[in-house]
């Protein structure tokens, strides 16, 4: 489904190279975890997948469902099935959450040639998904993410994800900031979305999340390169020994 080949990227403004040759292949149905020290380029990779303009790809390519992802606008990528759950979801004052959800959902439906969802159908859908994730109606009445606690923001991201039903879910540290119960609720929400047609890239610092969302493959990213790939036991090993060995390798 997704193939990243020799991806090099730098910060558009100042030219610092952040990604230094990433190769990653993710098949439908798989869950890949990406772990790695602070500043190694994990969020950068997720932003580049979503289409953020702050980064410039200098080499390599990204093929998604047979299409060249780098040629597509962020909204086209979303409609094609890419979803990034942000490490730091942004507050948008003045944009009502419900209005935003409806606009996003209908924009994607339109891009896919589907009819617009009626308001009652939309409301029903949101209520159902929100209840699963313990997102209250009160939160949905507020402007987008405004005044949400850190954990509430993360849950709201997963709510968006379950509404938009992407084929590639990129979760950037969705677990940080979540309390133990919220971690379980969010993980259940994510696991519910697991299916043979959908792939996930889960970025995390903690093995704990991977107890809930069990990955097929674990990668270690260090200094802009994938320096180690293994099974879920790799996460356990990292938890025990840290990244020291791999930082040397990079």
């Amino acid at each position, binding site marked *: 489904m997704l193939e990243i080949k020799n991806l090099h990227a730098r910060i558009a403004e100042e030219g610092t190279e952040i990604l230094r040759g990433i190769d990653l292949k993710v098949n439908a149905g798989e869950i890949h975890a990406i772990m790695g020290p602070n500043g190694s380029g994990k969020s950068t990779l997720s932003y580049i997948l979503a289409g953020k303009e702050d980064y410039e790809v200098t080499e390599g390519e990204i093929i998604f469902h047979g299409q060249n992802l780098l040629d597509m606008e962020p*909204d086209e990528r979303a409609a094609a099935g890419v979803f990034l759950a942000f490490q730091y979801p942004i507050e948008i004052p003045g944009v009502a959450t419900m209005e*935003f959800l409806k606009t996003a959902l209908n924009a994607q439906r339109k891009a896919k040639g589907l009819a617009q969802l009626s308001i009652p159908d939309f409301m029903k859908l949101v209520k159902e998904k929100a209840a699963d994730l313990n997102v209250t109606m009160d939160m949905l009445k507020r402007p987008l993410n405004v005044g949400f606690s850190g954990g509430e923001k993360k849950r709201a991201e997963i709510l968006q994800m379950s509404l938009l039903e992407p084929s590639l879910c990129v979760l950037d540290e969705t677990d940080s900031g979540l309390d133990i119960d919220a971690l379980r609720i969010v993980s259940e929400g994510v696991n519910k979305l697991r299916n043979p047609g959908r792939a996930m890239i889960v970025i995390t610092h903690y093995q704990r999340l991977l107890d809930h969302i069990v990955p097929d493959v674990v990668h270690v990213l260090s200094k802009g390169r994938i320096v180690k790939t293994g099974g879920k036991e790799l996460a356990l090993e990292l938890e025990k020994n840290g990244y020291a060995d791999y930082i040397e390798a990079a």
Partner: protein
Amino acid sequence: MTAPTQISHTQAESDLLARFDEAKGALAGSTAVKDLRVAAAEQIKTRGLPHRRVEEYKYSDLRAFMKSAAPLAPKADAAAVRAVLAADEAFAGLTRYRLVIANGSFLAEASDVAALEAEGVVIRDFAAALDADTAAELLATPKSASQDGVLALNTAFVQGGIVLSVKDGVEVSRPVELVHVSTEAGAIVTRNRVEVGTGANLKLIETFAGSTGAGESNVVFDYQIGDKATLAVTRLVVGASEGARLLTTLAKVGGEALFKILGFMAGPAFARNQQFVAFAGENSDAKLYGVSMARGNGLADQTLIVDHAVPHCNSREFFKTVLDDEARGVYQGRINVAQHAQKTDGEMMTQALLLGEGAEMANKPELEIFADDVLCAHGATSGQIDEDLLFYLRARGIPEAEARTLLVMAFLSEAIEEFEEDYVTEALETRVRDWLAGA
């Protein structure tokens, strides 16, 4: 002994003086009114149109903008008025009363005079009232506006308008739309007096329909708000207009009263909404809001002076401006607090969103405080659309243009929401969307 220095007149100034000589015999008014008109024309002759070296017009040089002055619009044909009104749908869905001023003169037969009368609202023709106004009281000017050139222009040429009086205690059941209709090119110059009696309540919507061509619209609203009364005004200056749109508010707010106004401007080449508000009684509130949009070489100017002449009054000024292309925006706001006006609370904020690289905003909030026990604050911001917000929306599948619209709407709707007059919200938001779509 030197004679007052004669300025050399621009084409527009010469046109205006010639227009005055032609029109003065036909313009309404008692002898006192006519004398005032002549004095006002004399002011134009000696000082010219307001220009950038006049402090209040530093950013809005009317003299440079007006290349010529069109004649006053002729008397309107009733059928033509009906046609313009039929095409004007801004508030079509709102149950309201309507008063029509056509080509500068009140048109009673197109207005809901009888229905308003039945509710306790008396409507008179401003031109007829001027004829009977032996002391020229209807043209009285507050001190803060006495030097204003746009007001002088209005006094010289005022064709007509309405005098609307809400009797004491009357709560008018529907909003009243006062619409200025132009059926053909030509300047329109009107003045309207709105008297809201003690404890009375009125919601007023001011709109413009049709085109004045290159002619200017110079419209003055003189609000006299009684004790314990409420007046809420929504002023819409919308649509491309070649001629300058000049709006002036003169407001006197009684005790324990509430005055709210939202000035909404989108589209004209030169739009100025200037407001002179004074508190005349204690424990009152004045809430002034502005939503301005301009593109191309357009200018949107919101200028105001709020005089806290008495203690215990609150004023709020909240203005939003969106500028694209090379457009210019102006906010000049001054809160004056007199020495004895203790316990004044004034909070002024102006915020601009610049969509175009060449767009420019002049923000000038000012406080002039002579009392010591007051709470006054002001702020000004000016910035671009936040790219991170835009990216977040786009990452959810919302195309760029739609995402921008959402963010601009969000920016502007803060003022519309705080205005809290729900019956106009939808119409205003539609107008914002229309403007963003290029209208």
